[in-house]
């Protein structure tokens, strides 16, 4: 059965984010922040979430290889290039190598039935950036190369998940054939999953996990990104339903104008290792 491989240290999976940093990401996401800022906050939270998911009392376990490709004026690049190693890096390495560390406050049990405030170090790996054109095709091709090579070396693994976040249309061609090529890559456990999050900015209808083009805004870019998205596998459908999402069989991993709380929930489904052995 596809998508049933256990995710473990002996058999990790891969998650690759592909992030739009074109000039239009300087537009407002809300009245307070730009799309670029909202996106960098989300990526930092997601990387922290992945590290947290791997954290045990004996250390951070290697359940995931994780990468971030950013594309914009400078072309397509490894956004975590300051961390040594290949594009897809082991979660313990990511935990060890933040760009910088911020202080945050948390309430923790005091051991006597109450709570006490403590300062917690919170890592930052990704800063906002936005300029220039939208070389989406080149970025997706880079993603395809990375997950294709990874899948060849990890045949028994749960297949890689590629999560593409963009607000616009590509300036370097048609990305749909490249998206199809990515979804034809596979491990013995199933095809690579490609999810697309379309950030449209202020206002507008929100869509998450649509099952047909009729549920997607009629804008050509939205329709194209929907077609570029993988069908949500059965186990993820169960996860999404348990998180309160209304999601039907046949739904695709596509979100339009979802706010970032919803976006995090959406992306977390991809990173939720529900089939980790207990």
């Amino acid at each position, binding site marked *: 059965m596809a998508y049933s491989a256990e995710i473990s240290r002996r058999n990790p999976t891969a998650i690759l984010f592909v992030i739009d940093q074109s000039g239009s990401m300087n537009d407002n996401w809300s009245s307070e922040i730009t799309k670029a800022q909202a996106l960098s906050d989300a990526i930092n939270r997601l990387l922290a979430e992945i590290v*947290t998911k791997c*954290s*045990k009392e004996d250390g951070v376990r290697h359940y995931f290889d994780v990468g971030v490709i950013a594309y914009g004026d400078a072309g397509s690049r490894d956004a975590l290039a300051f961390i040594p190693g290949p594009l897809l890096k082991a979660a313990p390495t990511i*935990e060890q190598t933040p760009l910088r560390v911020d202080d945050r406050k948390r309430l923790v049990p005091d*051991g006597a039935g109450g709570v006490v405030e403590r300062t917690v170090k919170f890592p930052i790996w990704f800063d906002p950036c936005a300029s220039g054109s939208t070389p989406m095709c080149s970025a997706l091709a880079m993603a395809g190369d990375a997950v294709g090579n990874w899948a060849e070396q990890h045949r028994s693994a749960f297949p890689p998940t590629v999560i593409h976040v963009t607000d616009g249309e590509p300036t370097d061609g048609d990305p749909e054939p490249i998206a199809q090529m990515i979804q034809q890559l596979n491990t013995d456990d199933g095809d690579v999953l490609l999810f697309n999050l379309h950030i449209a900015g202020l206002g507008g209808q929100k869509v998450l996990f649509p099952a047909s083009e009729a549920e997607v805004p009629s804008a050509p870019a939205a329709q194209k990104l929907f077609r570029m998205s993988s069908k949500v596998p059965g186990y993820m459908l169960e996860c999404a339903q348990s998180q309160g999402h209304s999601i039907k069989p046949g739904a695709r991993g596509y979100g339009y104008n979802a706010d970032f709380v919803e976006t995090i929930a959406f992306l977390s489904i991809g990173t939720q290792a*529900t089939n980790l*052995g207990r």
Partner: protein
Amino acid sequence: MSEPVSIVRQEFAYSAPKQGTSRGQCEDQWAVAVDGSAAAVCDGASDAAYSRLWASVLVQRFVEEPTVDIDSQWLQVAVSRFERSLDYLSMPWHLLERTLRGSYATLAGAVFRNESGVFDVVGIGDSSIAWVNMTDKGMFPLQAPEEFSDRTYLVSTVCECNRSMADFVCIKRCIPLPKGDTYVFLMTDAVGHWYAREIAEGRQPWRAFLSLKSQAAFEDWLADERANGLRNDDATIVALRATA
């Protein structure tokens, strides 16, 4: 016709980690009361931090105050012990975050009521209790192999996560202990699944258990059964003999 129980003895308790991991990483825990009045197994969830500790606290709590009527007050004592065992102030950010989201474990427990010649069982999640004697055999709370899956309800250290626990606590009371020996087996899910499958196929899996004379024999048996499809997971069997 039930008879008063004269003795409950621990026949054996064997536990082994998932293949490829160390004994210290095994998150199954078990306990048997010194007087034989209660026993429990817990399977800590890998997908959480400190699940081995939580499983250990739960089984100890169970044999110290045996009851099948597990409620929020009973659990709160265990949660407080768990929290007192941890140094939240020195954890790295990710471990703190994960720990605050809760540790999780199954629980299967048996309480022997010597004066009545019966025993009660409680199950939360997919750890199992099976029993067999001259007149009866049974398994609880899951019975059919297809009832075992990758998802199950677990007891959490976060009280809010236990709110719907009443819907998931399975209790069976007054299981008779007829004259002679009744064997009671407490198992975590990989072994429980195997046991249910053997029963479904008309075999007598307790005979295999009772032939295990040492931890080494258990590990050999486990290796053979894993090669035949028993799920690679932490595995625990506790065997008791109640003689009426």
